């Protein structure tokens, strides 16, 4: 009986925390389905309204939503694909082969993780201007196409999950470096690739500061920047702005919900091993 009570008390606290974590989503939904006048009422309305369609229409009138969403998707998908390829290839090389300068290169890689992004932002903008990439999605994709964190993380995975004998055997069978990577390393790294892929996708989808700086054409933005502009220019029409916020986060939450288990496993394992 005492155990029972303790168990119930435990779940009461855990559920309370869960409600707090989920509350913003519910409240966003409520605000997005009511009119702005309803939102301003006291006491506040806690039920879903029927204004959602209207609000969505207003969002689409005021901001190039689908264009921004397409831009965001293009950036997130291409960045993720490039990161998965480049990072896993480099990680496999670091994990399973020896060559002159390997350790020095790896130390450099680790050191780059300590550098804050602002340190590069100003000259990077000039570089983009020089390349003619200001306002273009290339300015978001290319610099993000390979990163130190992913290489570091995948390397640990390759070290633990692929035996040296396997790589040797593949080599003896006449597999070249690239084929060993493709046929031996990649198939065994699926869980790690899944984590790195979702991580990169989420980070890219939510990225804000650099797109804000480099995307100078107001008709050619990513979702986050478009949303922030909607908030700035139509801040009084709260139900519309909340609808925009809802529309901007839903795709990502769906992606996350599908892969949640693998992602959480990957995200927490990294910390334990490090």
């Amino acid at each position, binding site marked *: 009986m005492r155990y029972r009570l303790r*168990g119930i008390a435990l779940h009461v606290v855990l559920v309370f925390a869960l409600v707090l974590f989920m509350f913003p989503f519910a409240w966003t939904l409520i605000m997005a389905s009511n009119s702005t006048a309803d939102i301003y009422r006291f006491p506040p309305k806690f039920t879903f309204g029927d204004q959602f369609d209207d609000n969505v229409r207003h969002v689409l009138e005021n901001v190039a939503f689908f264009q921004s969403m397409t831009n965001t998707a293009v950036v997130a998908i291409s960045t993720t694909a490039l990161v998965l390829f480049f990072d896993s290839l480099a990680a496999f090389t670091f994990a399973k082969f020896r060559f002159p300068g390997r350790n020095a290169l790896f130390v450099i890689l680790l050191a780059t993780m300590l550098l804050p992004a602002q340190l590069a932002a100003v000259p990077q903008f000039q570089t983009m201007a020089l390349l003619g990439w200001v306002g273009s999605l290339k300015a978001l994709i290319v610099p993000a196409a390979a990163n130190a964190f992913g290489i570091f993380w995948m390397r640990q995975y390759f070290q633990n999950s692929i035996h040296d004998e396997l790589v040797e055997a593949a080599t003896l069978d006449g597999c070249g470096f690239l084929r060993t990577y493709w046929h031996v390393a990649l198939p065994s790294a699926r869980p790690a690739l899944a984590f790195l892929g979702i991580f990169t996708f989420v980070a890219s989808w939510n990225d804000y500061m650099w797109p804000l700086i480099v995307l100078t054409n107001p008709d050619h933005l990513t979702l986050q920047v478009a949303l922030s502009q909607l908030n700035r220019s139509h801040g009084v029409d709260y139900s519309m702005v909340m609808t925009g916020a809802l529309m901007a986060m839903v795709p990502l939450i769906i992606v996350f919900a599908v892969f949640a288990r693998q992602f*959480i496993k990957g995200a*927490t394992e990294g910390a334990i091993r490090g």
Partner: protein
Amino acid sequence: MTGTAIAPAPSAEPLTGRSSGQRSGRRVWSYWRFYLALSPFYVLFAVFGLYPMLSTIVLAFQRWDGLSPRRFTGLDNFRFLFEDPTFWLSLQNTVVLFFMSTIPTLCIALVLAVMLQSAVRFTGVYRIAYFIPNVTSLVAMAIFFSAVFSTNFGLINAGLRSLGIPEQDWLGQPWGIKIAVSTMIVWQWVGYNTLIYLAGLQSIPKDQYEAAKVDGAGPVRTFFSITLPQMRSIVLFTVIISTIGGLQTFTEPQVMVGNSGGTGQSGMTVVLYFYRAAFLDNDYGYAAAIALSIFMLVLLFTAINWRIFRVRGDAK
């Protein structure tokens, strides 16, 4: 023949490239495949990381508005920086926000993790629900939190009003801004840290707890003498992650109170100040000096974190 694991050579051995003595002058070039495989990261870092960072250092000693030619001004930017009250204010805001958000985040996360560990049912649901805030768009959530803290229709004020407490102009006064911003950071990061701590708790061998139980240690005693010491490296990890993230807070205040930093510039963080100097005022040299100071700040805090946890480690 030793060396690389490159194609069809049957005698190639992946991990023994170092064993041969006659290697010395031997073609570093025979490893070209490996260097090629690593090159994307290093080339991109050289072009979009190293080069701009070195330029930033040079720029910090120059005056430049992006149009007229650059002029060397020696230490002027730094001299101005040290006398600039807004810079010091932004530094202070950043550190205050860091403490106001990190300490509650990590404490709540630790408590939740301990509770989650002893829960048997629904742990999968809890994990996913707790993690979702961490993958949610910062901009969307900043808009949400400014609505919650809004003076006219915010939920917080509605709550205060129904309790008979006078409403507050949260986003219109310095402390209100800090509370709103740090509430959002706490909301976003508690779940992530909870799951990290949970993974750490689960990696502590069970027999240690049983031994403690046999010795008659209560739950509190067990927590402080077994759980916490074992979690030291994990706590360090979360503190470092929070430090690097917290000192670079930008999106939350920028969306919630705008580029000005709000009333009394209370939401002006160092990174927001950097953004303004560079991309709104086009004062690139000065922005470079601010960027360097952010870097020093991150290094300093990371070093302090290491120090604290190292010392604790030796004392153990």
